[in-house]
């Protein structure tokens, strides 16, 4: 490229040097030149590239006002019209990772701008948006900035040297985007396959050309040994809520979960409980919500001493069309609360 590569850098409120969590609700804003980690990036890129603008948005604002943030940032990008977008690095900050990924998706799919970012592999932002950016692997906290920035700079420099035609993840040092590319190989497929097979038979390392997807599984936790001393909680994706749905949990694509007291509640009756779920016929659940959230039976079992204690709160959301990423995030928060309240076992009901 003959001219300087024009880069926009996306940062959250913290790295954008506006403030911490108390400033996480700021809407997108555009600043001139590099800020924070962008300064180091810009200096290292020297004469080849320049960060012309920095877009900053609060992580909470971004995630709570997704459509608004997306359209505002898209307009900013359109106006600046950069050659490349750098986002983050986000490390293992979930909301930030999702924001970087979302911005990458807009840049790549709607404006045709390539994106370089850095993220911790378990940040949900990577799994959700990996096809939209060249993500370098970073440590899980900002303490890893020192290794993350040089890795990102390396990709940007290679991007410039190769006129935007980056090579494979192994060659360049970014994490797999899950994208398959046609290439010309020197040997035909059969010969390559036989070579791999021979290596495998010899017990040697070989590199597959088509890695199998990794399924995210969690090993079973050890069972409860003494139920009579165990505190049990109920969680449901069946949308059972106090009558009137006080927190307005959506009937589909729920944007939240609810936590409700069961203090003194022995039975879920028609007058006090209903379902917010829009994905099944609610008549039976509205008539008797114990059919989804078996409070009556668990109270009996508590009284009889079969279980130690019934946790006096339940957690609920609507599983209808709710994204895996959201469900996962709700459950992580729910689990934290359950642990904090000393809950030892959970029955989760789904419709």
């Amino acid at each position, binding site marked *: 490229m003959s001219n300087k590569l024009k880069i926009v850098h996306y940062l959250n409120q913290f790295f954008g040097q506006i403030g911490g969590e108390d400033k996480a609700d700021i809407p997108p804003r555009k600043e001139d030149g590099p800020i924070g980690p962008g300064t180091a990036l810009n200096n290292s890129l020297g004469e080849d590239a320049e960060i012309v603008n920095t877009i900053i948005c609060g992580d909470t604002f971004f995630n709570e006002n997704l459509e608004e943030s997306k359209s505002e940032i898209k307009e900013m990008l359109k106006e600046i019209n950069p050659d490349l977008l750098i986002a983050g690095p986000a490390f293992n900050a979930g909301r930030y990772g999702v924001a970087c990924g979302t911005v990458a998706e807009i840049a790549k799919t709607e404006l045709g701008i390539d994106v370089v970012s850095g993220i911790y592999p378990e940040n949900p932002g990577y799994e959700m948006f990996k096809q939209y950016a060249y993500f370098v692997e970073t440590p899980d906290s900002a303490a890893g900035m020192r290794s993350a920035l040089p890795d990102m700079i390396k990709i940007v420099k290679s991007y410039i040297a190769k006129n935007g035609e980056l090579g494979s993840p192994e060659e360049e040092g970014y994490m797999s985007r899950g994208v398959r590319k046609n290439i010309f190989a020197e040997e035909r497929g059969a010969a390559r396959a036989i070579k791999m097979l021979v290596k495998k038979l010899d017990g040697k390392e070989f590199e597959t050309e088509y890695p199998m997807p990794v399924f995210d599984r969690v090993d079973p936790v050890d069972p409860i040994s003494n139920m009579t001393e165990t505190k049990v909680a109920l969680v449901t994706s069946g949308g059972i809520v106090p009558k009137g749905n006080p927190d307005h949990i959506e009937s589909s694509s729920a944007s939240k979960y609810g936590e409700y007291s069961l203090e003194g509640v022995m039975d879920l009756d028609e007058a006090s409980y209903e379902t917010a779920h829009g994905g099944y016929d609610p008549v039976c659940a509205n008539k008797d919500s114990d*059919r989804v959230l078996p409070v009556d039976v668990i109270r009996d079992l508590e009284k009889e001493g079969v279980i130690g204690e019934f946790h006096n709160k339940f957690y609920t959301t609507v599983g209808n069309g709710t994204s895996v990423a959201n469900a996962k995030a709700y*459950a992580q928060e729910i689990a934290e609360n359950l*642990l904090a309240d000393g809950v030892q076992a959970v029955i*989760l009901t789904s419709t």
Partner: protein
Amino acid sequence: MVKEIERAGIPVVHVATVVPISMTVGANRIVPAIAIPYPLGDPDLGKKEEKKLRRDIVEKALDALQTDIDEQTVFSVNEE
């Protein structure tokens, strides 16, 4: 959701009507439920029988929570 609760170290049993979905989402202890609109009930039964049915499912869920497993396992009420 079930997976995240388990990841946090709390044993969890998934009472779910659509077992294949429960398997796909990665629940380890699964108890099949009755029907989507009434997983732990049956409006065609009398009140007493219905509660008995619900209790059977919950007791099976408690059994599952007390069972040592090393892979995804379905605990059916009617297989006893």
